[in-house]
């Protein structure tokens, strides 16, 4: 029906002897034109309603009356039952139903307006609490590891192997692609510079050392943060939202042993393997660029092997163990701290990835400083 076939809804407040009457007319429909209110609404309930010219109506009409009645809630007038004299019976019933239960809302979730200082204080306290949670989580993980070595940790072996598969084999395609391209890029950029010194062959050294020491492990860690860290947080977070974690607790399973431990173990085991794999694929990428710029693969290979020592090659692998632990920890931690709603799971996932990537870069800098000090 076109809205034009409806009469405009009107509400008129009029003095009527002692009280005020509310005259309602027209068609009160959501699709119809806006309500035209004349007169000022009194601070008490209308003494009577006039609805002779009232047409068809939907919920907008009782909502309008209720909105006015609710503004009176604070005054003494609210104590008396509102008279609905003059209203059609169905409206009267609906309004009585709506007013039947007293306000039981308790404290509304109030909008707080803090001063800048208070905001700063709250942020600082928040950061401090985040630190404490992190320490608590790391501590619990260590305890859980202790139980594992004593043979007391209970988790399903199949869960562990599933996680190994998810963060190992299933990550191979993306790791291959990214590290191959990184090797390619390094060789391109380095090749151009080295060619100007007539030292093109040293591209092999450049690619090998930078892949093995830094790029292989860091890129793998970043891929795994986005891939596996996020998956851990989302999985554990939604388990928490579904009260599945509470269910584990009541059956006597420690959620740490059951959920966190297998994930950390799996990622700590898989990260070094993925890193070694990424290093090799990256070097192959460099070799491809070398082949196109006139370095025969055999020569490239010999040069690569000559440039790498076992010490250099092991640095990346050592770091990868730590990165794996950091990624798994931040994923699981954010998942376990997640709130009980689907929105909270999303937030937890975001925080897990951000924490993991930040921590990976911070740890990598720390390792760089350490290795420089140790002169490796």
């Amino acid at each position: 029906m076109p809205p034009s076939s409806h009469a405009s809804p009107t509400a008129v407040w009029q003095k009527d002897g002692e009280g005020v009457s509310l005259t309602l007319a027209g068609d009160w429909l959501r699709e119809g034109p806006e309500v035209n209110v004349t007169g000022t609404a009194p601070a008490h309930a209308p003494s009577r309603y006039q609805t002779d010219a009232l047409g068809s109506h939907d919920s907008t009409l009782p909502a309008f009356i209720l909105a006015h009645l609710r503004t009176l809630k604070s005054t003494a007038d609210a104590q008396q039952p509102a008279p609905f004299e003059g209203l059609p019976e169905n409206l009267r019933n609906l309004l009585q139903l709506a007013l039947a239960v007293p306000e039981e809302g308790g404290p509304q979730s109030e909008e707080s307006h803090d001063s800048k200082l208070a905001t700063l204080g709250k942020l600082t306290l928040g950061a401090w609490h985040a630190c404490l949670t992190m320490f608590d989580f790391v501590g619990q993980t260590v305890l859980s590891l202790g139980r594992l070595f004593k043979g007391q940790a209970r988790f399903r072996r199949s869960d562990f192997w599933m996680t190994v598969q998810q963060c190992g084999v299933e990550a191979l395609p993306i790791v291959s692609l990214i590290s191959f391209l990184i090797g390619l890029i390094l060789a391109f950029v380095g090749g151009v510079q080295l060619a100007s010194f007539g030292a093109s062959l040293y591209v092999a050294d450049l690619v090998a050392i930078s892949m093995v020491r830094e790029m292989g492990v860091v890129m793998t860690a970043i891929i795994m943060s986005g891939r596996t860290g996020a998956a851990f947080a989302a999985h554990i977070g939604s388990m928490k939202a579904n009260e599945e974690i509470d269910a584990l607790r009541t059956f006597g399973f420690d959620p740490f042993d059951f959920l966190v431990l297998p994930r950390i173990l799996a990622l700590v085991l898989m990260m070094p393997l993925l890193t070694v794999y990424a290093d090799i694929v990256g070097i192959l990428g460099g070799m491809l660029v070398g082949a196109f710029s006139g370095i025969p693969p055999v020569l490239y290979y010999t040069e690569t092997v000559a440039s790498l020592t076992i010490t250099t090659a092991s640095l990346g692998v050592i770091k990868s163990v730590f990165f794996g632990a950091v990624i798994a920890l931040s994923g699981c931690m954010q998942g376990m701290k997640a709130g009980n709603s689907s929105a909270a799971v999303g937030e937890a996932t975001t925080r897990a990835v951000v924490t993991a990537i930040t921590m990976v870069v911070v740890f990598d800098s720390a390792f760089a400083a350490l290795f420089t000090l140790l002169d490796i």
Partner: protein
Amino acid sequence: MAAKITVRDLTMAYGDLVVMRDLNFDIQDKDIFVIMGGSGCGKSTLLRHLIGLREPAKGSILYEGKDFTATHPADRGPFIQRFGVMYQSGALWSSLTLAENIAMPLEESSKLPAKTVRDLACYKLALVGLSGFEDYYPSQLSGGMKKRAGIARAMALDPDILFLDEPSAGLDPLSARRLDDLILALRDSQGSTIVIITHELASIFSIANNSVFLDTATHTLGALGNPSELRDHSDNPAVRLFLNRGETPPPLP
């Protein structure tokens, strides 16, 4: 005049697994119609067929004589706008407050001023006894409150037909009773047709004027009619057993 909802030869199946076959029943205008049956008999599946979330394996569903199932899902807007659905778990959008949950369909369907939308949301929440909780998030509510908020949202667009999936399951007897009163009041004052899935016998007898019993054993319609009459006079023993809570049903007169 054609019945509000007509179900004709409806067969529901998941792949080869037939849930119910050849259902035939009518739901009249302003009925409070109960779909009942044992757990896993396909009550929720039937509801999902009625609101178009699943397509029937065979048969059709008509609304006031107009074929719903033959209409392409993209053209079902005019039907669906008249439905209000409360899902079993409430299915409130967890990132929105209660008022926003109700306001969202209102804002989508019409260009109302913000104040009117807010008033409407407050009114709907007041109807289910949740005034004062407008700015709460669903996660801050108890289970019963979520159910009631789910009903308030189902009523957001003043639906012609209200589908309620287990509205009183998990509620205390007093809340369940209040909910029954609410359902009756809504039918009487708004003239909605109400379709309820429930196996709360107390509710069934106090509000339903018509019902269908889905028989798990035979995968067919077990009985159709007023539940109080079915309890005492149904010729299907499974129905009498169900409606008498498994106590030996009195012999047929």
